[in-house]
């Protein structure tokens, strides 16, 4: 119980820190936000009015507290450009990004897990060197380069997929599945290589453990030892890696959504920056960072349920 309490306190603290950092960064901004919205030749009275509604006449701490309480209620302010609530804009594009993330994670596990196990099982064969080189390549190719290469191969040359454009799942499920495949694959290419590497290391570590020697001296076959003893134990740390990958995948999706013109949060971020739509950027930043913190928190909890030893370790 003490473990969970500590984790929850840490979680709340991190969320607070994230919100403070984001808030402070946007306060350093040169110039008066009210002036920026209304333009240079606005009426001073108007500016004064807007300053009051934006709480700009209050102190930093007070403004932070107002912003935070509103954010917790789900009110992240109003976008300059769209004149709509930031939370509304986020929730509209959230589905695209979250489904891209889930899709990529599914592909990552589907490719990375068997690959990692295969490399670990055949660590002495020559083919492994080739696969290791390939996984090194997978880690190094930036996901947006991969995306464009995939477009060039599968859409332009082979014509299997549409290169850009998004079909909502509500319109056509198979169409959605198809449009999301290449973006997800370009993210999963790198992350599955990372996953495979971790699994290989994890299996190699487990192979040195005492229980493996015990199983061997008991006369169990290599196959049974691998499948029933080693794999189970070596997959536990993989959950942590998946938690870390969530952050990577969300970060990667910022660029990937632009490569494939998907109307998700990443696309929203880049347009909000080119139009200097500050409330929107601030809202999006806090929102994405919040998701990452929540995911890491979830992974920690999940980890302690699967492997209770972790609770006593720290």
């Amino acid at each position, binding site marked *: 119980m003490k473990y969970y309490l500590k984790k929850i306190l840490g979680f709340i*603290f*991190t969320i607070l*820190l*994230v919100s403070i*950092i*984001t808030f402070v*960064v*946007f306060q*350093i*901004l040169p110039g008066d936000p009210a002036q920026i919205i209304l333009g240079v030749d606005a009426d001073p009275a108007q500016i004064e009015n807007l300053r009051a509604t934006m709480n700009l006449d209050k102190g930093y701490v007070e403004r932070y507290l107002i912003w935070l309480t509103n954010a917790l209620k789900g009110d992240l302010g109003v976008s300059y450009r769209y004149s709509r609530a930031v939370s509304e804009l986020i929730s509209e594009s959230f589905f695209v990004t979250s489904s891209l993330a889930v899709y990529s994670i599914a592909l990552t596990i589907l490719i990375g897990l068997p690959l990692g196990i295969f490399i670990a099982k055949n660590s002495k064969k020559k083919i492994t060197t080739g696969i290791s080189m390939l996984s*090194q*390549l997978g*880690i*190094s*190719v*930036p996901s*947006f*380069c991969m995306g*464009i*290469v995939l*477009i*060039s191969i599968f859409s*332009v*040359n082979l014509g299997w997929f549409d*290169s850009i454009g998004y079909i909502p799942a509500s319109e056509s499920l198979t169409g959605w599945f198809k449009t999301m495949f290449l973006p997800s694959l370009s993210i999963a290419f790198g992350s599955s290589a990372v996953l495979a590497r971790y699994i290989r290391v994890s299996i190699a570590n487990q192979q040195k453990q005492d229980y493996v020697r015990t199983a061997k001296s008991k006369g169990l076959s290599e196959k049974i030892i691998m499948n029933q003893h080693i794999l189970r134990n070596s997959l536990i740390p993989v959950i942590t890696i998946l938690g870390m990958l969530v*952050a*990577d995948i*969300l*970060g*990667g999706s*910022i*660029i990937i959504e*632009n*490569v494939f013109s998907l109307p998700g949060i990443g696309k929203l*971020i*880049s347009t*909000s*920056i*080119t139009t*200097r739509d*500050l409330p929107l*950027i601030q809202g999006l*930043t806090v929102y*994405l*960072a919040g998701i*990452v*913190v929540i995911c*890491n928190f979830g992974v920690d909890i999940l980890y302690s349920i699967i492997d209770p030893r972790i609770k006593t370790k720290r």
Partner: protein
Amino acid sequence: MKQNRLKKYLSNRNFTLGLIMVSILFLLMVVGFFYLPADPNKIDVMKELLPPSRENLLGTDQLGRDILSRVMVGSRISFFIGFCVVICGGLLGCTLGGAAGYYGGKIDSVITKLIDTQMAFPGVLLALMLIAVFGNSVQNLILALSVMSVPRFARMSRSGFLKYRNSEFVKAAKVKGASDLRIMILHIFPNLLQELSVTATLSFSGAIMSEAGLSYLSLGIQPPTPSFGKMLSEAQNTILTAGWYVVIPAALITMLVLGFNLISDGLNEIYRH
């Protein structure tokens, strides 16, 4: 002795392979300071999107500019940004991590918590936020990417300083009356140079990758200055008419990132054995 050491480095396959990849581009860049096949910014509408030929070894882009010349000039940005980010991020990260590891206690928990919190901002998000606030310029890009690379350096140097702070030679220096700063810089830091080189090369590739990504989004290096990321987005627009163009920037970015990653991997292997 020196030759032996060189042999040890070159006999590592990852290191050598990475070094070759990086050197090719580095040489291209150096040659570019003295000789360019054509003016990289000269627009010629008669020569739009010509495939590679003897006259334009890598072809021409959508404005008829010679791609090879643009690559030679564009690699300057990649190396320059990578170099500056490693220096700035490394200085800041090592200082923070060093203080955390050496002093421990409250300083350590504050710095560690800050670094952990920074990890909550995924990928280029933090850089994007900084660029949004401070505006789009090369200095701000370097600042943003440096901040992004701080956690990696800080973690490395924190664990290093933690490892050595109670060692015999540090105790001896303390007895002799050396100041904390002197111990940290002259006694502990030199022991971390090997790990530092691994982290630095990894950060180098990370910075190049992020710069390319941001320039691809038109939020990094601004045209007409050629950069690989921007070339990639221009090439994507002409992917239907000139499919070969997109291969060039994609391959170059990958080659640089892969090259530095391989060097980092290689160094890691060499130092461990």
